[in-house]
């Protein structure tokens, strides 16, 4: 029995018939063809599939697509605005916060959430905030630097406003 869902992803509203067992990450990747969100473990441990659902960072491999019915979703593809990188994206680039790039979209989404909740985090707070996201390449240190850099960028932006 298929189910119809309405989901707004990166500002575009979609209506699709889906299998009830379809995961949100499968919906995003296979139905909407937004392949920036990755699958790394299928057990909600690695965080590669992290997206924002109604402003909350969630692991989309542990949410059914049906549960996202009526929700607003932001994926990595929707983070940059008007051709300008999100400060977290820019921070990752400047501080070499990625190597193979596979964990990066989820890592960036999780980092963006950390800064939403705490615009001025300590290194330790960033490290704890990223506990749900695994990276095998970077040793996390440059990711921490990247998030600090993003925090600074966001602060100077909000001051400018």
């Amino acid at each position: 029995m298929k189910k119809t869902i309405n989901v707004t992803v990166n500002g575009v509203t979609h209506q699709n018939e889906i299998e009830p067992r379809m995961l949100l990450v499968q919906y995003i990747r296979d139905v909407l063809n937004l392949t920036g969100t990755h699958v790394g473990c299928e057990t909600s441990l690695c965080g590669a599939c992290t997206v924002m659902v109604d402003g909350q960072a969630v692991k989309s491999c542990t949410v059914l697509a049906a549960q996202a019915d009526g929700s607003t979703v932001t994926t990595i593809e929707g983070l940059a605005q008007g051709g300008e990188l999100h400060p977290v994206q820019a921070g990752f680039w400047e501080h070499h916060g990625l190597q193979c790039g596979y964990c990066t979209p989820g890592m960036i989404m999780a980092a963006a959430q950390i800064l939403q909740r705490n615009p001025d985090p300590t290194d330790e707070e960033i490290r704890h905030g990223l506990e749900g996201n695994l990276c095998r390449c970077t040793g996390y240190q440059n990711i921490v630097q990247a998030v600090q850099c993003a925090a600074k960028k966001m602060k100077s932006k909000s001051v400018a406003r």
Partner: protein
Amino acid sequence: MGLTMAEKTVGKPIKRTEDPRLIQGLAHYVDDIRLPDMLHAAFLRSIHAHARIKKIDVTAALKLPGVVAVYTGKDTQKIGAVPCGAAIPDMKTPEHKVLATNKVYFVGHPVAVVVAETKFAARDAVDLIDVDYEVLPVVTDEEKAADPKSPVIHEQFGTNIAYKLTAGEGDVDAGMKAADKIIKQKILNKRLAPIAMEPRGVVARYFPGEQELTLWTSTQIPHLCRTSVAVMLGMPENKLRLITPEVGGGFGSKLNVYAEEAILGWAAMQAGRPVKWIEGRRENLQATIHGRGQVGYVEIGCKNDGTITALRYNVFADMGSYFQLLTPAIPTLTGLMLSGCYKIPAIQMNVVATFTNKMSTDAYRGAGRPEATYVIERAADLVAAELGKDPVEVRRKNFPQPNEFPFKTATGLFYDSGNYQGALDKALKMADYTKLREEQKKARKEGRLMGIGISTYVEICALGPSSAMPAGGWESATVRIEPTGKVTILTGASPHGQGEETSFAQIAADELGVSVNDSTVIHGDTAVVQYGIGTFGSRGLAVGGVAVYMALQKLKTKAGKLAAHMLGVDAGTVKFADGKFTSPAALSKQVTIQEVALSAHLAKSLPEDMEPGLSASSFYEPKNFTFPFGTHIAVVEIDRETGDLHFDRYIAVDDCGKQINPMLVHGQVHGGICQSFGQALFEEVVYDENGQLVTGTLMDYALPKAAMLPHFQLDSTETPSPVNPLGAKGVGEAGTIGATPAIVSAVVDALSPFGIRHIDMPIKPETVWQIIRKNSAGAA
């Protein structure tokens, strides 16, 4: 204002050109490839570690709507064996068929494959396949496997011993006799899982008209994989195009040729439609190679002044149940590096390599060398403990001096260049070592458990001279300047996160006087890129980058000749700087490299005997390996109540020769140290006595997380390699090799007041807590 010199990019932390696509989710990994009419494959894998297959019933699976085909071992007999590229004298090589036929040998062993319209249907059908197994006795311990009373895995051999090997030079018995002290220690390097964040995956498409098979696969070795899969499928190699799109990490696990790669190609040919398979994490833990897996016994002889006289390492090396590409070769790398950065007159390694009912071991970051470094560094610490000396003193005592390079070891190597004192001194200064030791004394008086661990390491990189490599150790590059002046670099060293698109473009930028963004680096498509070897063994830059440099020299030579022709001067008078050719013979004139490129393509006026176009290739063969080195220092404080380990400081001074992009170098070192923390404190692939994989998901296999690691304090020294013109040594594995012993050493040092001299990895708080409890006053 006068003309400014074009700014050099080599040696600068240039931001990566590959990042914009990666940080915006716009890159393409294998799972991101979608083809029209694509089918999906799923594997049925053995739930037993050792069993005879009596019957497989696929009837119900075939009836499931959406299922196109189900294949078992009987159907895939024509596919050739999974290759092993390593050869050890008298080794026993079991035939490694792509699907189990008569027996299964490990949990995760592929038994059948379903091809279906959707991945849901494929997975559902896997559950409907009925296999009748006769369960057999199991052997999982690499040491017990050598016991003739243990169950034999490959019956045709009558033994689980895959090979025995003795390596090393010098008279070890005499060295032990001459020693004042002989210290013995059992040393474990447990099995680890590489866990690239992107699991393996394959998409296969066959065009029957062209008879062309295209495989997209997540691999570190596109060309070697193409050759191997073509042989397995019995098809002409030039009809197989292999493409590695973005690769989400490898760490050696994708330096291989896997059964699934051949099966997918074959299945696409059967179906006449594209087929995709993406490995799940559970499959990844079961059926992607593991690393390490050594039970060793080290014996070290020393004089009372700390001079090492001899080293013996007897080791049981766990092969798993089959050989993958390099399985039997890994322990030989351990043997090569047992001398560490010390003068040891006699070294002997005795390997007993055994088959066990587990997944194959193979190259995981460091591949045999972390094991060696761990053994010799632990042994150096044991010498210090036995003699009551500072571990730094023992190391200094045995270092070769900088003027002794090239330095010959008793393992048959010539270390190219080194200044081990230099790196050690720098690290000690960063740590303020004398003060640290005073702090430690004070801490001990207060009843606190503080430890300082030191590792001075050397590693073997830039793998390697072809004579020492199973399938050639050279690397290829082609550099073209297109008619519009843009530079195209084709490299055979297909990367998976190393940043070669940036570092290779930096080399081209400086050589050609163009900007980094003027070059595009293409890799990983065998239809586009000339044959190459791949990225592993810390060779991307130190072999692949050197090939780019060599090709650039050839290209510049041709461009210079054409420039002279354009300037109307003798070729010998032409100078090239900042992208422009000038000559004292024509002072008012200059031509840019871009103008030369256009002229070469238009070919209206070329020097006699010059062919049109501006392109050059190099197949660079390294004369020797390179030997980067360094010193790592870890400082730990242990919570007496819980056994928790708090690493307050971590200092690393690495010397990888000339650095092209120090930001990328730091990134490699950070990642390597992190994986060392994993091995030292958290990670361990665990099979139970029945051969069941206990660490089958990331819930059970503990990877280091951000909050589990200290801030790494990095610096470097620079001792250029004389082996190649870039002077680069390689850095991909340094962290994984140098850090593990430092971390363990720190914990052991903290617990040394209890008489502790060694603790096996992974050192968990529980182990530490037990040690503290046993040794504390008033303990029951």
